[in-house]
């Protein structure tokens, strides 16, 4: 037990050291724009279809459930407002982040982990190239930019998914549905969702890259670290989401 706690504290210290290094190097030039662009393409552009499909179905399911419940009160047009608010505040950033963890977070850990076990990282350090600045910081920049961008697309697609089910499947009055949706949704709802997404991008990348750099034990170790990174990132974004929601409600009243 004591050994477990000591190991946990050692890992925590290493993670905090890594976290502060990342924060520091984010503001130190030179910024490797080529690397950043490459990762934006990987994380952002190549993830658009899978993110869009995920949130489209999420919006459809949410709309279907809400319309069935609200039909009891003959208030099915209000489902539009509920879908849009839920989507912009919570679902779009969280679902996008989870999809990106599965697709890109795991890839980051596996890629860096493989480099670690094949001693490419050591080679870089030997050549006085900081792996953190070369491998991690560009990924963090790319994630901070692409997570909100994909969340913006997710918002639009998710809301359209809800609208599609409401107007074309359930026969809800489309004009009333849109009216209530835009009446209740506030720009602040969308902004807070985008801010959350940027924070998620930072958290996911830091956790996944940290696990990649800590990999040891060959291919088995890569697999173990990848699983741990995905699980920890998913839990971390849910906890961070709760904390940010609490802060937004407490201090910004939204």
């Amino acid at each position: 037990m004591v050994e477990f706690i000591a190991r946990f504290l050692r890992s925590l210290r290493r993670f905090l050291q890594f976290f502060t290094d990342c924060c520091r190097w984010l503001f130190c030039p030179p910024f490797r724009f080529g690397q950043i662009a490459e990762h934006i393409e990987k994380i952002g552009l190549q993830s658009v279809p899978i993110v869009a499909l995920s949130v489209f179905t999420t919006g459809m399911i949410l709309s279907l459930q809400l319309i069935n419940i609200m039909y009891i009160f003959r208030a099915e047009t209000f489902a539009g407002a509920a879908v849009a608010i839920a989507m912009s505040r919570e679902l779009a950033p969280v679902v996008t982040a989870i999809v990106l963890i599965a697709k890109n977070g795991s890839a980051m850990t596996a890629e860096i982990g493989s480099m670690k076990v094949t001693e490419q990282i050591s080679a870089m350090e030997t050549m006085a190239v900081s792996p953190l600045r070369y491998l991690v910081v560009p990924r963090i920049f790319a994630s901070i930019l692409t997570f909100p961008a994909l969340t913006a697309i997710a918002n639009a697609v998710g809301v359209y998914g809800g609208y599609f089910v409401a107007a074309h499947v359930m026969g809800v009055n489309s004009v009333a549905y849109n009216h209530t949706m835009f009446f209740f949704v506030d720009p602040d709802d969308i902004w807070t969702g985008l801010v959350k997404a940027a924070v998620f991008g930072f958290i996911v990348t830091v956790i996944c890259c940290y696990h990649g750099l800590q990999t040891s034990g060959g291919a088995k170790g890569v697999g173990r670290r990848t699983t741990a990174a995905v699980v920890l990132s998913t839990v971390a974004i849910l906890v961070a989401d709760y904390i940010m929601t609490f802060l937004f409600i407490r201090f910004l009243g939204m």
Partner: protein
Amino acid sequence: MNRALKIFVFFVFCSCCAGIYIYKSADFFDGGTKTYFAIADDALGLLRDSDVIVSGVVAGKLDKIGLENGKAKFTLKISKDLVVYENAKIEKVMESMLGTYVLSLEPGDSSAPVLPENSYIKNVKTASGLSSAMDKVAEIMEKTDALMEKVMERENQDKINKIIDLLVKTTENTSQSIDGNMKLLSSVLKDMADVMQKVNAKSDTEMEKLSQVLKNTLKVTDRIAEISDGKDEELNKTLDDLRNSLKLIAEELAASRGAMQDVREITSNVNQITEKVANGEGTVGKLLNDDKLYNDIAKVSDKLTDYADTLLGMKVYVDAHSNYMVFDNSFKTYFDITLQPRADRFYLLGVVDDPRGNVSHTETTRTTVVNDTTYVVNDDKTVVTDNLKFNLQIGRIFGPVALRGGIFQNKAGFGLDYNPWKYISLSAEIFDFSGSAAPQLRVQGMARPFLWTMEPFSWLYITAGGEDLINGGRDLYFGLGLRFDDDDLKSIVGSVPKP
């Protein structure tokens, strides 16, 4: 596709998604909003962002609901185009049967001064419409219940029964008296007719008969007196009881008569007002009745419209700005005129003073023989023709997004403008597809941080961006400009003294 271009398109697409969504949910008002406050007794059913309507048209939003001295305080964002006077009224009205409310604003009229921004609207009515009617019904029901309770009390019931008995007896007695006396009255009238005949005849015998008639009349009078003497006491008592009962009923009814009194007063006031209006008294009366005044106003209005129409005929924006090119260490100056005949279409004419001019490269290859050795020489000639370039573009506006196409600095191209907020504008232009090099990509951000201030500072704006970003001749810039529209032009033209 080039990676940079793909990323650019990706972010533009994401920005459009977010921008359009935010724009649609933001309920912007053209020309901005101004803030007013109102204090109300009841904010029940009102939500943040509830509509403020004027004659059924949305003219603002309820920005905030708070508390001030134990009452609800509304912060209203009203469209800047709407003039609100000090006699403005605001009322909470039911929007739907779901219990949601909106605020109905009567902006008042010019008989009162204009209400400055950040002031309080004093006439506030929060209990209205269906709820008000329900309150009145409840009030009437309460009074009716009280009246019925009093009526149903045993003491009052006895009184009412007594009144009814007395009324029945009185009616019977009166009927009997009238029957008895009607016969006498008939006899008297017959006698009177005879007397009149005798008087006409003027004979002594007839005079005797007249004497007899008078005696009979006296008898009738005595008889009536007898009847009256016998019944006086009973009749007086009955009448007293009746009077008391009626007084009691009158008192009860008086309590529920307040509302009717109010209605009567209102009706009386309305009658007075309509009389005054009909007589041509007061401003409204004069406007309605004085044909000359109406014609004068109509003429002035027509002249003003003609003046504004002939002055410009369309929305015109004049723009002049100069950018400092960081790498080239020079200034590039633009002068544009945008003509906007319709809300969704515009034409842009402009001149650009570019210190770099039109740069064209000519590469020639020649062979030279030196000492029996043949050399191939490439001559690269760069020609800078002229500094002045022209813009001629046509654009369509789709909400916050505008698409432009036409001539960009003497080259064909197209552009995209995105205005997420009135203070900020983002533009991207791509043009010059002629050469072997990639087309020129120009990206610009424009901020109007002084738009909220007084003129001429509100005309100022700052720019920053990059030119020719894809090719080697890329440059970054920042600059300062002036932009004003036809309203500003009108005021400038209007302020020029006439010769």
